[in-house]
């Protein structure tokens, strides 16, 4: 019975929190976009029937209400069952992933109560594999929706998006493997606790893994440098061209939640989760005050990563499709494998003698990691398949020059 009540409270908090966060992050994103483009952004919607504007804080609520009250028509040419099922699949898969995101463990100090693990599914030993598996289900939502829509824009968008999602899942998995190797556990709690216990975050020791993971999670969430799936100028809306009303909202919220989930994972795997030096302590269980500080630190880090996602959106142009696939298979996958092998070699051959020689382990690992990042970056630049593909075709240039000289 306690299990049911505890689970229900956690579920309500996480669903409510995510819905609110998604709505208000859209507002934050629009304000950030406005700030970057030197506009004002949405700042007028406040309390209805008054003149109070509240910096546009009413905007997300107005948007939600409008989504519900818009006409939601099903076009005549679609496959009805799949057309309705696809946004549900995407929406559910995007939220169910958060069942394994840990917020730390709190000891309320009440006699007879065990410490409460602030995660929807406590004791899930394979948290990372669970997240990895559930996040892949988004591909089904995209493909089903695009196929059921029976529309050319939706179909091309869906096929492109599916190819992109499955291609970037492999670098994502390889980058996670490096962290798993360094920690020896698939539980996200254990990964955070290992970083907290040593005080050395994985970003210091595995910057190459972070780079691969960051690029892959950008692509998985379909955000701007990689938003080929719905490149407005070519494909109207991509796979959700034929959707309207609340079904469109479910797709859009799901995409936003992918970005939020990516930010959570980046913080958990590479930026120490709830840990901050001298502020949160480093044991696994905390009292209620420290637990609140930990949650605040965790959410602040996640918010920082989300802001990075937003700023990146307005800083880079969109990739071309061949560049996108080339980056996944020819650059990110080899870099991820290099990171994996380097971590394995470090554990097998280098760690024991170096620690025996009296060197501080964290410092040596950090130096080795950043050296590896530099070497790998130089090697990738020297090989540079994408940069070479971008140059104008030499033979075409020569032919043009010859024709001009002949004239």
């Amino acid at each position, binding site marked *: 019975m306690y299990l*049911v009540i505890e689970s229900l409270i956690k579920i309500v908090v996480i669903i409510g929190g995510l819905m609110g966060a998604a709505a208000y992050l859209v507002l934050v994103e629009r304000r950030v976009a406005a700030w970057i483009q030197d506009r004002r952004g949405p700042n007028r919607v406040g309390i209805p029937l008054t003149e109070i504007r509240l910096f546009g804080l009413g905007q997300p609520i107005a948007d939600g209400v409008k989504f*519900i009250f818009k006409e939601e028509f099903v076009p005549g040419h679609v496959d009805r069952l799949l057309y309705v099922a696809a*946004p549900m699949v995407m*929406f559910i898969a995007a939220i169910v992933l958060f*069942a394994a995101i840990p917020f730390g463990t709190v000891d309320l100090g009440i006699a007879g109560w065990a410490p409460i693990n602030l995660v929807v599914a*406590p004791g899930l030993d394979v948290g990372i594999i669970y997240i990895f598996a559930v996040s892949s289900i988004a591909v089904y939502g995209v493909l089903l929706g695009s196929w059921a829509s029976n*529309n050319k824009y939706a179909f091309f968008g869906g096929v492109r998006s599916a190819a992109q999602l499955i291609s970037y899942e492999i670098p994502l998995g390889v980058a996670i493997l490096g962290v798993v190797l360094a920690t020896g556990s698939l539980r996200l709690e254990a990964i955070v606790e290992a970083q907290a216990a040593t005080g050395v975050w994985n970003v210091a020791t595995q910057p190459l893994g972070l780079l691969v993971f960051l690029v892959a999670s950008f692509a998985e969430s379909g955000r701007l440098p990689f938003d080929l799936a719905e490149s407005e100028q070519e494909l109207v809306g991509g796979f959700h061209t*034929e959707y309207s*009303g609340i079904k469109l909202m479910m797709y859009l919220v799901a995409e936003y939640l992918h970005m939020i989930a990516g930010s959570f994972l980046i913080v958990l795997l590479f930026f120490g989760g709830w840990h901050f030096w001298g502020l949160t302590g480093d044991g696994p269980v905390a009292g209620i005050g420290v637990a609140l500080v930990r949650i605040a630190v965790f959410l602040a880090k996640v918010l920082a990563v989300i802001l990075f996602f937003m700023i990146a959106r307005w800083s880079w142009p969109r990739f071309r499709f*061949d560049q996108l696939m080339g980056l996944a298979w020819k650059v990110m996958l080899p870099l991820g494998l290099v990171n994996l092998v380097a971590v394995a070699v470090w554990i097998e051959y280098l760690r024991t003698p170096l620690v025996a020689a009296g060197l501080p382990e964290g410092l040596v690992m950090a130096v080795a990691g950043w050296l590896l990042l530099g070497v790998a970056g130089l090697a990738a630049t020297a090989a540079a398949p994408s940069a070479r593909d971008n140059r104008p075709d030499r033979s075409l240039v020569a032919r043009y020059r010859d024709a001009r000289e002949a004239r």
Partner: protein
Amino acid sequence: MHGVVFPLVLFFASLVGLAVALLLLGQFCGPRRVTDVKRMPYESGMDPIHPTRRRFDVRFSLVAIAFLIFDVELLFLYPWAVVFAGGAQPELPSGAAAAGRPPLVFAGGMVFLVLLVLGFVYDWRKGVFRWR
């Protein structure tokens, strides 16, 4: 085990409920004026020219096959990574639990990775990842 799976099932069930509730909300709250133009596929205002479900580029299928291979191999590597880092102690055939890391686990993983990379190089040379 019961305590692990139950919250997940509850979470999943409540999400299905939420999704269905949202869909029903949209069904009941919105206006409903169906016209012939709304029922047409959207093609930037032109009349649709041919059916959508025709043949498409085979390279998407090649990428899907390559993905299947690499994804399954990655799943093999996860338990290897845990065992390698000393997180799990498998039983030796003699019945004694292994002390520390089991023998040859590094070499085994590397052999597996070399085979993976060989397949990757073969794919690359065959032009699976070339997109024009």
